[in-house]
């Protein structure tokens, strides 16, 4: 089963390497991993999607906690969350019919056309994994020339995680 983990880490050099190392060392596969800044520059936030049995994921979390730079990890798989992935998709568009159809599809998925060339369009779309996968599925027949996805970032709705994360954040910042 896929699990989404959210980790707050100290913004130290090498922290990404430590986390990535741990996964390969313990034989766990990462589906996606994103890192970004938070409101404090001392702390970064990672969203890690892993595939594995519950006991395995529990072991990953415990091992991650042992990294000194890791402040907090939460398995938000069963929480109510907002999940966002962003994709840039370069689609073949050699004639006006396909061009129109692609624009229409992008529209339905609340995507944007961010680049137009003689024989292609670049569609930008954000959403959860499923939404992006369905758009991809629809665009495939036109011919996908290039594609990149950022990987999922995740945030719990309401107070949830924020309360749990608060204490460490303050301490690391202060």
């Amino acid at each position, binding site marked *: 089963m896929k699990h989404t983990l959210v980790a707050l*880490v100290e913004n130290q050099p090498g922290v990404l390497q430590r986390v990535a190392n741990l996964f390969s060392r313990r034989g766990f596969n990462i589906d996606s991993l994103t890192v970004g800044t938070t409101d404090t520059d001392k702390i970064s936030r990672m969203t890690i999607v892993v595939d594995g049995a519950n006991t395995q994921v529990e*072991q990953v979390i*415990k091992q991650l906690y042992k990294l*000194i730079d890791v402040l907090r990890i939460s398995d938000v798989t069963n929480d109510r969350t907002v999940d966002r992935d962003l994709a840039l998709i370069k689609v073949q568009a050699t004639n006006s019919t396909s061009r129109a159809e692609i624009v229409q599809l992008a529209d339905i998925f609340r995507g944007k056309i961010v680049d137009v060339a003689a024989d292609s369009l670049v569609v930008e779309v954000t959403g959860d994994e499923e939404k992006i996968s369905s758009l991809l599925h629809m665009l495939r027949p036109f011919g996908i020339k290039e594609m990149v996805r950022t990987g999922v970032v995740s945030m719990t709705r309401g107070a949830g995680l924020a309360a749990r994360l608060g204490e460490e954040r303050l301490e*690391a910042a202060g």
Partner: protein
Amino acid sequence: MQKLNGAQILSECLLREGVDTIFGMPGGAVIPLYNVLHDYPFKHVLCRHEQGASHMADGYARATGKVGVCIGTSGPGATNMVTGIATAMMDSVPMVVITGQVPTYMIGKDAFQETDTTGITMPITKHNYLVMDVKDVARVVREAFHIARTGRPGPVLIDIPKDVTTNVTDFEYPEKLSLPGFKPNTKGHINPIRRAAKLLDDARRPLIMAGHGIILSEAYDELRQFAEKTQVPVISTLLGISGFPETHPLYYGWPGMHGMYYCNMAISHCDTILAVGMRMDDRVTGRLNAFAPHAQIIHVDIDPAELGKNVPTAVKIVGDAKQVLKLLTEEVQENPAGEGNRLAEWWQTLNQWRIEHPSLALPDKPEKMSSPWILRQMYHVTEGNAVLVTDVGQAQMWAAQHYFFARPNTHITSGGLGPMGYALPAAIGVQYGRPGEQVWCITGDGGFQMTLEELAVVREENLPIKIAIFNNNYLGMVRQWQQLFFNERYMAVKMWNPDYVKLGEAYGIPTVRASTLEEVVPALEWAHKQEGPAMLEFVVDPFENVFPMVPPGASLQETIESVQEVAPQLAKVAAAAGGSSGGV
């Protein structure tokens, strides 16, 4: 405020951490550091190979419970210490390893003797640092020592570029630590402790498995009090040996691949296990899916990641062995010894196993040279008072089996990594940590060849270490595997050896060879009486095997006790198939 350079700040911080002894070797990147050591009261021990320095720091740490410190230069100095760091990591030994690095402005340029030391050691350290600014030196050293010794101990590496050691800044010792991501829980929650007590009160066939954690947290009295209050038998892991007196009536030996037959039976038949400060290593558990099939397991460890990692547990208790055992002893019901002992029937079974399968029985006088017998005589000659530091292989196992360790922390060995060549340098570290004690280095001929350059240190420093080489002219443990599991197809196990008496002479270490049974005890007595260093070479039978043995892939229940049992047992194991195996 005092202006100091990075090397001085490092030294000031080492002083404040109570460091008295440093093991290492200088080189380009650490010359500025060595330059200031003139002005500090540390004893510096010059290793002859940095692997030696790393094992010395390890031995020192295991012997004292303090943080061991070693220094190596950048590049080869650092890579030579990798084995010692990994050893300390696997066995939870507190160490601070200081490595030089090329100057900050040369990092990434493939400079002379540049290696990515923090990259190499990331998976084998508890934490590591590359210090890029002299202003960070004091904080980093303070944190490194705290991390190394707090919670589950382990090695921390500080990689320090040359210019950082020469740059100058105001020195202020950071009194306060800020490590929000590092807060080990030592106390142990009362709820799981109460549940554990209940399980133990109800148990009919309970067993305590005591690991290295007992020694690391110095929980000797707490373990004894718990065992005596409940009359529960105590078995230890290889690294747990000497955490509980082996001469105590409640001690029941140690289990696993070369453990006592009866211990393996006890695990296979018990109904409750209290595992303290151990990590369910495959050498202890045998085939996992057949480990302790009837037992509810209560697991106590300071590292939450160990609980449930390898075996399912009924009760998980995160905490320091000493504190948890204390609370647990308060919570359990008393079970008085003698008449009315609730566990009388269990003890009867245990005693019966021990009578029927006396794994450690030896003749008073064997017919020919025998390594187990030599070790038993060593026990008698030293009156059980020595500290044994053992290498890896057959001799290691025989030492663990046939010497009886009654005093706390007197058996020191590398259990997790098992690097040949560990014993001599580790013994040097142990001797520095416990100068008043008689330290014996027990090694095979193969392992001894790997780090014998440190004999120079023994001589130079006149350390009274007694070195016993068990020379079978073979990589004995591997030969045993080839004999038992590879149809006697011996490959790369027979070894030419130098003349160890002459070698000893060359190093200025008095050496005696014992090739016959009659020579053994006099040789041991001679060494025991030497005030300075002494070396013994025992020329032993190349075809001795270590038994009992759990064949690779077998369960503890399938322990064999002789060569004749190997073939039929292997056939059974193959039929059952699967599970863990692992190598030598």
